């Protein structure tokens, strides 16, 4: 038996450790290299049970490898930081009210996506969460383009954990009653009480599983106490990267470097919803971000290809990089699967990938090459599993 797909070799480079490393090991986490870090891919329960537990109860994820950056305008006005960030993203950042968060993308001159990120308005500054693999480049990108107006400050001394699932609010509000009133994408400072002491956290009601839940930015020195307290709750299990991936895939959410990258535009990535009217043609602050000409034209004419959800009839998973064809016999490759695997909640394979726009409508049948056989896939609406956000 030989694994057809392996994580990158641990010998690649010197891997960094997250503040919860010892806790992961003590809890039986299977550690793998991920984006330059040693991260738990699963715990003793295994990916299937971890996934189903998160959907039914609550799962605790360590996402401390991700980048946390504050953006503060030298003028002291958060509007100036928002206006400055709009030079780099096609989103309306100025309209994000204090205490709210918005999904955004850094774009390049070709209209491609350099990274996707979360942007929260904390009243006097913006708080950004970016992908681990991109965080160094993101910080340099921000410094290069925004240093005239903003102070860019990475927060390496803060850990980031996500509590996800229908019971997340019940669990977290025992220690932080103020989080119960938050709605999806609310974000701000909250005090979390752990053994009689208040820990200053930045909490957002968001995550990347499709479930209700929270992302909690916490001083690295306090994260173990917080994680241990949350894990002591019978509703909570520790969850690894394996289930994080299957949960976000069922939720139809993009994984940077797979479903979106420097060669895909927001329109190709089916992320039009994330670009507000004010930044599109005719809007109050149209354009002005890298690749705007290309991206805004695609809003008018459509892109030539599009990210779609894909479902099979059978049980064989169709994995990333599988080639897509219009028919069982056609030799012309028309697209590629960018994420694929088994969806434990659906108890069926799920995938997403890119297809020519005329073939991207729901119900269209295409074929994937899987070990030399053509498997039929149906273009399907996403999310594959309905989300549980508290709007």
């Amino acid at each position, binding site marked *: 038996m030989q694994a057809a*797909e392996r994580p990158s070799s641990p010998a690649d480079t010197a891997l960094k450790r997250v503040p919860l490393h010892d806790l992961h090991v003590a809890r039986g986490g299977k550690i793998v290299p991920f984006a330059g870090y040693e991260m738990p891919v699963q715990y003793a329960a295994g990916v299937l049970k971890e996934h189903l537990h998160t959907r039914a109860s609550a799962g605790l994820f360590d996402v401390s490898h991700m980048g946390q950056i504050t953006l503060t305008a030298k003028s002291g006005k958060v509007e100036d930081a928002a206006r400055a960030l709009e030079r780099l993203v096609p989103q309306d950042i100025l309209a994000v009210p204090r205490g709210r968060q918005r999904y955004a993308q850094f774009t390049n001159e070709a209209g491609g996506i350099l990274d996707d990120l979360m942007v929260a308005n904390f009243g006097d500054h913006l708080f950004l969460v970016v992908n681990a693999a991109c965080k160094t480049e993101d910080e340099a990108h921000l410094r290069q383009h925004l240093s005239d107006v903003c102070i860019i400050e990475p927060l390496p001394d803060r850990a980031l954990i996500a509590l996800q699932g229908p019971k997340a609010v019940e669990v977290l509000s025992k220690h932080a009653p103020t989080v119960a009133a938050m709605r999806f994408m609310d974000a701000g400072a909250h005090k979390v009480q752990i053994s009689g002491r208040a820990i200053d956290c930045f909490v957002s009601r968001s995550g990347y599983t499709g479930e209700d839940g929270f992302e909690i930015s916490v001083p690295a020195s306090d994260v173990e106490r917080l994680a241990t307290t949350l894990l002591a709750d019978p509703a909570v299990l520790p969850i690894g990267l*394996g289930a994080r991936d299957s949960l976000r895939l069922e939720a139809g959410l993009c994984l940077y470097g797979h479903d979106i990258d420097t060669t895909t535009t927001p329109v190709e990535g089916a992320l039009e919803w994330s670009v507000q009217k004010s930044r599109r043609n005719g809007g109050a602050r149209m354009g002005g971000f890298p690749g705007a000409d290309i991206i805004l034209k695609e809003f008018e004419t459509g892109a030539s290809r599009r990210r779609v959800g894909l479902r099979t009839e059978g049980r*064989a998973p169709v*994995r990333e990089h599988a080639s897509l064809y219009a028919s069982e016999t056609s030799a012309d490759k028309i697209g590629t699967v960018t994420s694929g695997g088994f969806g434990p909640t659906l108890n069926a394979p799920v995938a997403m990938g890119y297809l020519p726009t005329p073939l991207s409508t729901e119900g269209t049948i295409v074929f994937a090459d899987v070990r030399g056989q053509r498997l039929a896939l149906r273009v399907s609406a996403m999310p594959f599993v309905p989300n549980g956000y508290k709007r």
Partner: protein
Amino acid sequence: MTTLFTSDHEWLQIDGDVATIGITDYAQTQLGDVVFVELPKVGRTLKKAEAAAVVESVKAASDVYAPIAGEVLEVNDAVAADPSLVNSDPGKAAWFFKLRIANKSDLDGLMDEAAYKAHTA
């Protein structure tokens, strides 16, 4: 009956000129939750080291190679119908396929249980 093991974590139970093949408990632990198994067609003639079956966990696909050459006599439909058998009973109920052994000499390089235990220790 003799049970032999490969360094790639297959087991073979030898009964006369028939070998029953599955993957080891060590292998299923490494794979995690198995969600899909693809078996060879009955009657197919396998070369030694040829990809014969596929076992997929939630996250990844792995090939199962024919540890020896031979013709596929029978496959285990139960494991295709319920891939979780690979996790719950890898050494017995979750056998993958039976081969008619083409060359007895193919068995020479395989490990006995003690050697396999040492290999995975």
